[in-house]
């Protein structure tokens, strides 16, 4: 038996490194014990651990990544004992938590293993993964991760990394533990929420600089700061809100107004950032995990099933089938209309959801009119078919938020319009780029008459 599996183990070692330490060998042997043929077992091990060897930086971290290598300096380290109820009798497990940083940012981590270093040391983690915990990205070090201490590292020193990093809004990622930025307040609103049983006032709004926009929430009062103010934020936290990084201002965050002289040196003003976003390519949206308040123009290449008239549960607004809500059972549904479509501009494609108000605008029929169509036709898909006939192939510009998942980009449209009529300008520019060709008569009329003669 051993002779049979030896070559496979050798191959695995070549591909994955030390099998013993990472527990891969144990896993392989478990499969063999279940009488899985060795070559199949090898394949599934390779699929699970192999992939491509990825070395990531803090800025690359996003939800649900696994199997990557990471090197960072420990900025903070703590220890907790965790006792789950089921195993109350047993020895509590220890969880090590803290912050790791590299030159691109800092991230919280939790480890089920004791780390081979302390604050200030640089560690290398193989087979790390990412979990979302309390709406924040957390680098996780599990049983199968391999952690080693690196004594001579090129990473910046502890003091350099501890000073939280100044970032433009576009560079703020979901993984960032703490950020400093200078931005202009574009929107601001107050709401009352219950925090730990106490009524408190939170401020939410939108920040902007010359690179982009991000939502923010402040848990503290912002005195003398209003829409149009340019502020400096030091030590804000980043949380994930609806799949989007959001800047959180806490009591530990320092917020100050930027004076007029300093503001002049900035690359933006309130007027410049308050303008509507310029349409970007879908390619650019695809290169990021999420984007807040951007606009895109393309063709609706496909209207997806599930568009048209839908019925929602009156309690929870979930879409219901045949009057049955997943949570509330038999209910009297409320009619609603939405359109789900694929927008494609040739550089990328994304799935866009248009809520009722927008669906009515781009389809040109109100919910009531669509209902009439639905009741007057025998086919239950009459409205869907009609929307398809009306929209497939059309041009549309939209504005809203994007987020990426394993199914591609999803975009929730907040407004939609027909792209501007700018064809003549674009043609002139194109002709300039194409240049004039020697062999071909540059005179327009000569070409035309050439064709004309053929025709006659």
């Amino acid at each position, binding site marked *: 038996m051993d002779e049979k599996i030896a070559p496979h183990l050798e191959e695995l070692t070549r591909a994955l490194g030390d099998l013993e330490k990472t527990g891969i060998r144990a896993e392989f042997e478990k499969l063999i014990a279940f009488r899985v043929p060795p070559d199949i077992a090898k394949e599934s091990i390779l699929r699970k651990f192999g992939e*491509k060897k990825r070395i990531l930086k803090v800025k690359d971290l996003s939800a649900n990544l696994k199997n990557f290598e990471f090197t960072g300096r420990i900025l903070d380290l703590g220890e907790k004992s965790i006792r789950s109820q089921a195993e109350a009798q047993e020895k509590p497990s220890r969880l090590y938590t803290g912050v790791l940083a590299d030159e691109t940012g800092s991230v919280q981590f939790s480890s089920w293993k004791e780390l081979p270093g302390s604050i200030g040391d640089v560690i290398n983690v193989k087979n790390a993964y990412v979990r979302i915990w309390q709406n924040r990205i957390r680098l996780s070090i599990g049983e199968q991760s391999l952690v080693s201490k690196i004594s001579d590292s090129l990473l910046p020193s502890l003091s350099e990394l501890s000073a939280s990093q100044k970032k433009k809004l576009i560079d703020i990622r979901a993984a960032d533990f703490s950020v400093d930025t200078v931005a202009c307040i574009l929107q601001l609103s107050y709401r009352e929420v219950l925090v730990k049983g106490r009524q408190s006032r939170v401020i939410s709004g939108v920040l902007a600089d010359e690179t982009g926009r991000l939502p923010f929430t402040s848990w503290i009062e912002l005195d003398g700061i209003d829409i149009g103010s340019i502020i400096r934020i030091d030590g804000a936290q980043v949380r994930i809100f609806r799949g989007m990084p959001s800047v959180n201002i806490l009591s530990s965050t320092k917020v100050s107004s930027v004076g007029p002289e300093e503001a002049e040196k900035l690359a933006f003003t309130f007027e410049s950032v308050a303008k509507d976003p310029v349409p970007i390519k*879908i390619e650019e949206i695809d290169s990021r995990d999420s984007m807040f308040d951007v606009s895109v123009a393309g*063709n609706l290449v*496909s209207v997806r099933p599930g568009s048209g008239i839908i019925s929602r549960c009156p309690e929870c607004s979930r879409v219901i089938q045949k009057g049955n809500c997943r949570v509330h059972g038999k209910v009297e549904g409320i009619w609603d209309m939405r359109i789900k479509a694929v927008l494609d501009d*040739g550089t990328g494609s994304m799935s866009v959801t248009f809520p009722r108000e927008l669906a009515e605008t781009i389809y040109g029929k109100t919910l009531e009119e669509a209902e009439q169509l639905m009741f007057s036709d025998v086919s239950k898909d009459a409205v869907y078919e009609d929307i398809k006939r009306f929209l497939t192939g059309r041009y549309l510009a939209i504005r809203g938020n994007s987020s990426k998942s394993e199914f591609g980009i999803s975009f929730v449209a907040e407004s939609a319009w027909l792209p501007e009529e700018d064809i*003549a300008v674009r*043609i002139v520019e*194109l*002709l300039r780029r194409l240049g004039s060709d020697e062999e071909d008569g540059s005179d327009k009329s000569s070409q035309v008459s050439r064709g004309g003669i053929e*025709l006659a």
Partner: protein
Amino acid sequence: MLKREVAKRVFAREFEACRELEKSERPDSEATDSKTPNLLISPLGLILNRVFVVGVVTELDNIGTQSEMWKARIVDPTGAFTVYAGQYQPEALIFFSTVQVPSFIALTGKARTYEPEPGSVFVSIRAEEVNVVDEEIRNRWIVDTAEQTVERLEAFSDALASGYHGEELREYLLGRGISSELTEGIAIALQREYSRGEFAKILRTSIREGLKTLDLDSENSTSAKADQKEFVLELLKEMGGSKGVDYAAFIDSAASRGIPEQVVEEVIHALLAGGQCYEPKIGIIRLVG
């Protein structure tokens, strides 16, 4: 999870010059299982699977024997796409069995190649979704496609002029902000035995002429020529309707209303190139729509 293939914008001239991209040539070796889509590569390095095309449908044939199979020709300013819809594309099948010829249509579909014998390759589209659209959308598609093609042409010429190969070329192109997909495509295209610069030159000329037919429209709409064009168009509608009109008879009757032959020829040629009218038979002009 497989991501949806992007619908590439490509002119017929470049599309029909596409060839299959062998699995071994593909950039990411991990994606070579059975689920990977068929990929084609153009002489300029465009890698494609799905396309989005807007043009004029000029021919329709039901070529199926046992089950229905429609073959359509869709014309753009540089040439024509051949499109098939069979029993596995039921929606497109119904569409083609009812659509008026000619009309402006928008279509998404998957690129296919067929090589009955070595050396002769037929590139076609298997239709997915089709719809009737207006001329405005067609014009926009031409400009969009021209922009993306010109970008490709510029990157390709740049790569050719640089004289780099392989890894060096990839680094060079990525450094110039070219997307990784196009970089890979150009590197592969340059390795193949293509006519290299020749094709780029032909395509350039073809696009320029296609754009000029559009440009002519917008220019004329502001000048006095526009009125004459309007008039010719009106006359064409009046005389021919949807049946079409004899070209010689049309010239005579235009001349009798004070429009010189040269202007009529110019207008008709522009209309033909712009896809607003076509010749069902030699010497007969018929308006689209």
